[in-house]
């Protein structure tokens, strides 16, 4: 039986299989089911500071609408002891998940204001999270903001959070950086212990009836694996940080591929939502079978063995399609 353990963010995981942020990780029952199925770690749904701010202001707005103006109705909603409009419920989830699970619990945070990132990161650490994943993405829509400025802000923020907490810190990135490899390097210099590649987002859609914009999220498919696969392969060995693949990790083959490219953790969200926690049992068994069949001793042995640095054809990571096309039309080049 090969050793399936993997180190990720300094945490020792029983396998490289990690549940990425999704509704499944937001509920204690499904978290327990994931653990029962053998998940090695869980990333809780993101705490969105903006959402919390919005909820808080929305609650405030609803309670104050029409309040104090009409003698018969000084307000329109019952007074409650708690509207749970702050981060408390999330922090309770962190603490409850920590109590309920034996596997590492990684919290996820999307901040909105510089102070907000730090405050929330500290509260999450206090709540007992084993690690924190920063969900950095924002749509850089303002033409006045050059990429250098935005990257500098992100780096500053990572450094500030790093300085403010002690638990391991991962940064979940979007693929939309011109100089991604460089930026990844800078993030590790700023204190990121790991990089999670890549974030997926709500994308706008248009309603042809109403001519309104209606953003929604579409679940990933295996085809999307290629993008993280490439960048994990490229970054493996180039940055001093753990690497996790997310987006498109659906099958055992997908898991093997990202591990070969250099991932320390293979994260699932869409696949788990579609197939349930039982998927983990299948993935783990298939992973073990594959390793065993090829006489690998451990996952650690496998990790990064086909990264750009280790691959037979490193350039393939950079120019895959073009290269493949060329090769298909020419005879193999003797080495």
């Amino acid at each position, binding site marked *: 039986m090969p050793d399936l353990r993997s180190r990720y963010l300094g945490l020792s995981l029983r396998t490289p299989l990690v549940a990425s942020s999704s509704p499944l990780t937001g509920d204690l029952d499904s978290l327990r089911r994931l653990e029962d199925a053998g998940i090695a770690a869980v990333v809780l749904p993101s705490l969105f500071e903006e959402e919390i701010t919005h909820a808080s202001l929305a609650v405030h707005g609803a309670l*104050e609408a029409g309040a104090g*103006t009409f003698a*018969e109705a000084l307000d329109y909603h*019952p007074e409650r002891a708690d509207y749970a409009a*702050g981060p408390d419920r999330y922090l309770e989830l962190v603490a409850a998940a920590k109590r309920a699970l034996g596997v590492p619990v990684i919290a996820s945070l999307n901040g909105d204001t510089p102070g907000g990132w730090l405050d929330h990161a500290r509260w999450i650490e206090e709540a007992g999270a084993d690690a924190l994943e920063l969900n950095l993405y924002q749509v850089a829509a303002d033409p006045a903001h050059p990429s250098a400025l935005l990257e500098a802000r992100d780096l500053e923020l990572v450094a500030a959070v790093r300085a403010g907490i002690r638990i391991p810190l991962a940064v979940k990135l979007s693929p939309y950086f011109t100089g991604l490899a460089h930026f990844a390097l800078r993030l590790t210099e700023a204190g990121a212990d790991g990089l999670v590649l890549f974030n997926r987002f709500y994308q706008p859609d248009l309603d042809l009836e109403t001519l309104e914009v209606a953003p929604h999220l579409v679940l990933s498919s295996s085809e999307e694996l290629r993008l993280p696969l490439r960048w994990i392969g490229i970054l493996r060995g180039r940055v001093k940080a753990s690497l996790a693949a997310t987006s498109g990790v659906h099958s055992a083959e997908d898991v093997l591929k990202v591990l070969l490219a250099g991932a320390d953790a293979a994260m699932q969200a869409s696949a788990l939502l579609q197939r349930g926690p039982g998927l983990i049992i299948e993935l783990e068994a298939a992973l073990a079978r594959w390793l065993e069949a090829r006489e690998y001793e451990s996952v650690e042995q496998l990790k990064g063995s086909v990264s750009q640095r280790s691959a037979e054809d490193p350039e393939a990571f950079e120019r895959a399609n073009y290269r493949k096309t060329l090769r298909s039309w020419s005879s193999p080049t003797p080495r």
Partner: protein
Amino acid sequence: MRTCIDGNEAAARVAHRLSEVVAIYPITPASPMGEHADAWSSEGRANLWGTVPEVIALQSEAGAAAALHGAAQCGALATSFTASQGLLLMLPNMFKIAGELTPLVLHVAARAIATHALSIFGDHSDVMAARTTGFAMLCASSVQEAHDFALVAHAATLRSRIPFLHFFDGFRTSHEIACVDLLEDADLAALVDEDAIRAHRARRLTPDAPTLRGTAQNPDVFFQAREACQPYHDAVPGIVEDLFARLAARCGRRYGLVDYVGAPDAERVIVLMGSGAGAAEEAALKLVAEGERVGLVKLRLFRPFPGAALAAAIPASARAVAVLDRTKEPGAAGEPLYEETVAALYEAQLAGGRPLPRVSGGRYGLASKEFTPAMVKGVFDELAREAPRRRFSVGIVDDVSHTSLPWDPGFQAEAPGVCALFFGLGSDGTVGAAKSTVQIIGEETPLHAQGYFVYDSKKSGAITVSHVRFGPAPIRSSYQIAEADIVACHRFALLERIDVLERAAPGARFLLNSPWPASEVFDHLPREVQEQVLDKRLELFVVDADRVAREVGMGGRINTVMQPCFFALAGVLPAEQALAAIRASIEKAYAKRGPAVVKRNLAAVDRSLEALEAVKLPARATSELRRPPPVPPGAPDFVTRVTAQILAGRGDRLPVSALPADGVFPTGTARYEKRAIAHEIPLWDPALCIDCGKCAMACPHAAIRMKVYPPAAAEAAPEDFLSKPFRSRDLPDHLLTIQVAPDDCTGCGVCVDVCPARSKEEAKRKALNMAPAVDHRERERGCFDFFLGLPELEPGQLDPSQVKYAQAREPLFEFSGACAGCGETPYLKLLSQLFGDRLLVANATGCSSIYGGNLPTTPWAANAAGRGPAWANSLFEDNAEFGFGMRLALERQTAEARRLLAELTPEVGEPLARAILEDTASDDAALATQRERVAELARQLGTLGDPRARRLLGIAGDLVRKTVWIVGGDGWAYDIGSAGLDHVLASGRNVNVLVLDTQVYSNTGGQASKATPRGAVAKFAAGGKSTPRKDIGLIASAYGNVYVAQVALGANDAQTLKAFLEADAWPGPSLVIAYSTCIAHGIDMARSMSHQRDAVRSGFWPLWRYHPAADPHQHPFQLDSRAPSLPVREFAALEARFAMLMRSEPEAAERLLALAQADADERWRYYSQLAGLERSVTDLRAAEPLPGPTAREE
């Protein structure tokens, strides 16, 4: 511990701790007591004995009283909270409860009973109506007393077995915030007798020791048995006195059954009870200090009446006594307290030979009419006369019966302290800030503080005035501030609407929220304000609170900007301490709403003082701008003489003669109240408009108007007036104009939300777009004036069966004070457009009766011919029967008119008589023709000497078809009026019922009704309603001959229109249940109609009609909406009433929403099956329009 709370909370805090069963029903001003109790129980707060009281809402106060009766009979400690009409509904049970010596307590925020008009305000007419029930009646006259006496009432009822009615004055005490020393649990435990509780339990109904109650007794024993309870009543005063003494021993606050203050050798004495004692005590003490021999008797216990104690409290030296009653009992020898006092003094004279003073009876303070020390002095002055009037009133000018006493408003007797007035507009947080200020001063300093709040009758653009006093001595002033040391105006625009500085004391500080900096503000003040500032030598300070609030992300909530500025000017606390206290109060108030709210409010505080500027005043007033008159010149006489005075805040000065004796008011007065409250108004782009009329259909205020007219009519149009060709084959060559009423629009944005016409080039641009009112109001005013002059359609010109045709008709419901974006009013407007000139409306009490009938103005209007909806409100619970009575009268009069006309046919000529009698008037043109015939008939009748002709002349109008619509909210239809509504629907008669279904009691602040859906959070269902909404439509359709429609205008306006027309046309009973979005749903009201659409899309509110028919193969049940395509959860997530629970109690919300989804699925499945069923009306005769005489005589 000292805290600042209002009278309702003061009473509820004790009642909740001493009860096990709390049966409630909302009614102003007592609702907050029930709301507190419900909220405390839902958060698990226990009573004195460690159990959480069961707080349960009933369908009416009658139901609550019965539930209490049952609970107390079975040994529970039971209580309720009520007022006014609610107390009246409890009366039958109260006789039973007292007759059976059942201990329980009713806490009553005493309020006027509706007579010539409804009033939500305070007086004793309700409690006085309960004085014969056998309940003991204990009267608290202040917030502290409401707290203390609540305990005494609960303790005394258990000891005496006599149920207690503990009351205090509605609003003046129930809503006043004052410093209260709180009773600890130990205090409660010390006064409540555990043995008495055990005895109460031992008497309970139980099969373990069976007894029987509620016997029927015969003449042989009833009388004796009735007398058997007497010793229990006799014991009450002693028990109350003992409890007062024990309370004093524990807490130091001393009360007697009757308390006297004033000169020991007083010659003139006033007797009263309730909050007026505060003003009376101030006046008496001041006069005594000036050497006058006057005194005041404050009565605490009214039942059993402590006659001997009262007589003993009045000094023997008293020559003249005035007994003041806060109620009117027409026809009585005197009002109740007067009569009791006279009897007590007479008996005291008989018993002990004490001299009998001359006793006068006076009325004061009805419906919270101000009662001031000056009025008290007026009474003392009257008593000083040789022969004081035997009966009088004080506080009004009675130029009809000449009962009123004069008083000198200049007499003031307030204790030294600071008085501040805060003027706010809408939900800008002014009232909240004033309450917080009272709490900070009252709880953080040794000073005493008091807050009282005066609200508007409007629900949009409402003006609030907060009266705040603080000073070193306890504050007894139970009246509004007459002279303020500080005036804060939180909205600049108010300066143009009301006289903000009228009550500013000379030299007062004036804090103004101004968009203009100190250097410019003076030039922007209206001339009247400039003059007041200079004449009174006011110190003017400005702060641009809106800017600060905007910058910190608080939108229009300026409270935490204004509050620090007030403290800076008031100087009541050192600056840093004040800021720290404000910060602490923000943390306390807002922490549970999340850190963002706290953070932003704190930021507002931090930036407030740097924005505060003192204004250097010029020497002279220079402004050209003058405050406009309250109504435009040329308004009708009544409007100018009466309405305008009320609008200007001078209603108190109107004499009795100015007001109708019978409560009858003219309609169509809202159009004279130009409030101009919108910040943004919609502007029309004719190039994009598709003539659909949806904007006018959805506009809650009839402020978006649509007219279709011949081009010639617009020849003299102003240059800016817009029009476009009207697209219609039915009426070619006409123009269409969509016009905003710029001074009447509330800026809610609903019209823009519903507008389906988008620009092809820029999707966000519609045929209506909001624009800053300040830039467009003047121009649109001119256009609207011209628009009003355009001709209306001729009868029959456009059949109203299409939305755009219906909207081209004149609305006869316009410019109501309903909330901006109100979901109810579009239905009423539509009703007025379709049937307005022949419409009678019976309106249940609730939102629609308030925005429909609360003075000063009414939105119900008449057309150019003088015809329009005739509207009346009777009560809350009786509306179906009330409207039914209207229908019966109409039918009788029509039948009588037809009978007379048939008899007079030879005199008026057969062709005319026949045409009138055979008319079926199914459309507008036919109605117009019938009207012309009836007018001709009237002309002829006028020439006949026959007495039958004179009789017919009086009722000939009823030969033209009329329609009766019974209108009310869900609280009425589903709950309190349910039985009556059922009876009326069962009658088969031709009445139409419109339920404006907001799914909560909207007018009283969002309490749950049986219309409240599962999973929604509402008051009285603070943990989310656990049961589904009652399907009132389906119940009604079970009759088979009732036309029923469930509609939602925002989802399908054509279906709504169709339902209204079908309901009116159906000659039997009709019920239209109209989904009405409401501020209590916690939604963005600009998207009100979109929420209705989603409610339907999710199957939460399916649209359907049940159209009875005689054909046995008809499918009367018609589903008008498509199968649900949106999960209920997604609909619910956008409404705070559901979303609040989703956040705070996700597990409970999950469970309830899963059930709500199941409800929707099952409902759809069931409805789908109903839609396939055949059913016919077996007996169409029941639905005949005019059963009886006409048919018989023919």
